[in-house]
């Protein structure tokens, strides 16, 4: 084949632009940290990447949701614990009050403390997470109690939060019945203590009701505890899921730096070689030798 200068320079230009574009590609990979930057580089990985991102985004979202769930459950548990302690104190006071040797001033003191505890229990029923009353069912902006007693706005609906695709957790314990019963009991107790005709035996009879209430609170706490366990499992599962998706996403599109840099250096030296060889070939013609 007859070879001419224009062919040599064409080939050289082509080789140089090829190696330039290769270097450019590696440079882009190294600076962006990604194997590909446009769908046509790798259509399959692009679509996979979009799906992974959605998965990851969901996992992050569910993790955030779980934090909210934890908030609710922890606060509920805390509130129920306080309610339990309060009921326990009432039991002590009840046992004390059931003793007929109490003077009327003793009774008044007990009654006053019970009044306080009643108020405290109402406060517990009005526990808030953020600006939400957690025991008001789905009427979270309405308190369970106001000064005049139980408000009419609350309900016993369940609040749910999604913690995984299609998995929803109940996060609240509706307080209408539970705290309503406690409040009624407290009112009855107050009335009883106000009535001087009631004997210690009458007061003792209340103990059964109190135990019942205590059981209810305990049952609610057990329920919350079970849910907390479940949340913990979900948290672990989500964390694992998030790690997996992150890994898959990374495998799908992150650059292997060692590889990319090595390839970049190889491409660079090939480019250098092309340049110097090209320079040598192109310089020399017969013209240089004819004098």
């Amino acid at each position, binding site marked *: 084949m*007859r070879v001419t200068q224009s062919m040599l320079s064409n080939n050289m230009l082509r080789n140089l632009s090829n190696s330039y574009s290769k270097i450019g590609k590696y440079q882009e990979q190294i600076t962006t940290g990604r194997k590909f930057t446009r769908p046509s580089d790798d259509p399959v990985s692009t679509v996979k990447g979009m799906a992974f991102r959605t998965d990851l985004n*969901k996992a992050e*979202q569910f993790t955030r949701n779980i934090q909210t769930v934890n908030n609710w459950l922890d606060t509920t548990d805390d509130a129920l614990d306080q309610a339990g302690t309060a009921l326990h104190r009432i039991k002590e006071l009840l046992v004390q009050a059931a003793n007929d040797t109490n003077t009327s001033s003793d009774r008044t003191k007990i009654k006053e403390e019970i009044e306080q505890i009643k108020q405290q229990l109402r406060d517990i029923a009005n526990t808030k997470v953020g600006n*939400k009353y957690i025991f008001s069912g*789905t009427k979270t902006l309405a308190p369970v109690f106001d000064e005049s007693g139980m408000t009419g706005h609350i309900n016993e609906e369940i*609040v749910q939060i999604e913690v995984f695709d299609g998995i929803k957790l109940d996060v609240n314990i509706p307080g209408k019945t539970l705290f309503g019963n406690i409040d009624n009991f407290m009112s009855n107790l107050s009335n009883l203590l106000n009535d001087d005709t009631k004997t210690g035996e009458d007061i003792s009879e209340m103990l059964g009701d109190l135990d019942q209430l205590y059981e209810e609170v305990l049952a609610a706490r057990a329920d919350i505890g079970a849910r907390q366990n479940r949340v913990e499992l979900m948290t672990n599962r989500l964390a694992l899921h998030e790690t997996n998706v992150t890994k898959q996403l990374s495998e799908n599109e992150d650059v292997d730096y060692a590889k990319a840099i090595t390839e970049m250096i190889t491409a660079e030296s090939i480019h250098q070689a092309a340049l110097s060889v090209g320079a040598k070939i192109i310089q020399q013609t017969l013209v240089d030798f004819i004098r």
Partner: protein
Amino acid sequence: MRSTFMGLEASKRGLFTQQTALYTTGHNIANANTEGYSRQRIIMSPTLGYPGAGLNAPMTPGHIGTGVKAESVQRVRDEFIDRQYRQETNKLGYWETKASAISQMEDVMSEPSEYGLDEAFRLFWSALQDVSANPDDTAARKVVVQRAIHLADSFNYIDTQLKQIQGNLGNEINVSVEQINSILEQIANINKEIQAVEPNGYVPNDLYDKRDLLVDQLNEYFPVSIERVPSGGNASKVAEGSYTIKLNVKDNSGSYSEIVLVDGGNYATLRALDTSGKLVDGDEDTDPDNPQLAYLPFHQLEISMGNKTQTIGQENFQEFKGKLLSLIDSFGYSTDGTNNTIQGYFPEMLQSLDKLANAFVQAFNKVHEAGYTLGKSDDSDTSVNGISFFDPVGLTAGTIKVNDALVKDPNLVAASSVQGEEGNGKWALILANLQSMPINNKESIGKIKDKDGNETTVELPDNLGLDGATFQSYYQGLIGQLGVDGQKANLLKTNTETIRLTVENNRASMSSVSLDEEMTDMIRFQQAYSANARMITVIDELLDKVINGMGRAGL
């Protein structure tokens, strides 16, 4: 008997011929870098021997040579390689332009990334999840509205940008057609010059080169074939004549035919017309019946020559390739001349995005309208059914917009599935879960309850046209297709580039100037010239002997 000065004549011819050859060598070197130039060479042949045939021809010992003449100057070129080169140029013109158009589209869509439409969707669904977990939280509601604005903006942005590129493509169609017209005119002018020169027996090689280069350029835009028409008169055997340039098209019956673009000194004028019969350009011209349409699609190429006008549509040259077809394919075309059936890369992407925006707005609005807004805690009557989340008029990617009322009052986000329950985020969750919901017609979504406890089942609207894809998978499909098309265009571009380089090298091997070769020729011709001159000196000495040295014996 030969004449006294005969030897001088032969050597003089030698001088002239070698000089001519040297001039040609000089011309070759001078044009070593001229695009389209093919090297020329002198065909030398001996002049007729002495004596000529005849009864009274003098008797000589043999037929004595009388020297050399330059028979003709020819360009060294291979027509077969030219054909190959033009075919590949044609394909390369198509794939190069297509790859560039797709690459611009990819830039706009910017997937996969943290800025694209996909991410805007993700952020929106995510914000709805937050509302479902905190339905009474105004901040979370504000975020949903802001993310929705971002989503709508992303749709608007992509739509605007794609249309802008589409406009540039339209402009490029117009510029290309002007370029083609200019090339046709130039070829016709060269034809005229050639027709004037050839009958005198000359072979205008440089004009041929120039004309062939123009034909090469023409093939980048669309495929043409050439036919030679001899100039007549005293034209040389190697004269190439005038070119008749024909455009290869597939006529509507499916057979192939040709449309004459240049015939001697006459040339056709081309115009690319849209469906309204106006020139395709980068200016928006909206169809009154279809205001969504920013650019009327290409309809036909009008080719007028003299008083004859022919039109061809996109389908007439799709069997062949070229830059013009590629631009038309990207810009959009209508084969039936109406704006109802627009095909092409950019219009189809825009239509798909419109379809997605439409299905999304319709589905989302319908579901949102069923839910209940945030009311005051003490008065359940202030919790009412949702309004349209997105402006119900904005049903395309270009017009999608969040309802202003929601921007002003985020409490209007209908997050509750039961009237008057501010802590109920179930409806927000159902809205959020539309993310992974296959969008089928009339699919049942969930139940809502009014304050009297009446339950209603909510369904997706009819005719959304996503055929059971989720919003995301539909969009992923578009991006996947874009990627595959782009990959194909890039691959074919690289392949044709490689093939064309091979053919180009073959052509260069045949036709381009080699300086080494010219230098060798230069030495060859220079030495031959000197030798001829030396021959004249020798004859001079011979004659000197005869004239001055003879008849003086014994002096």
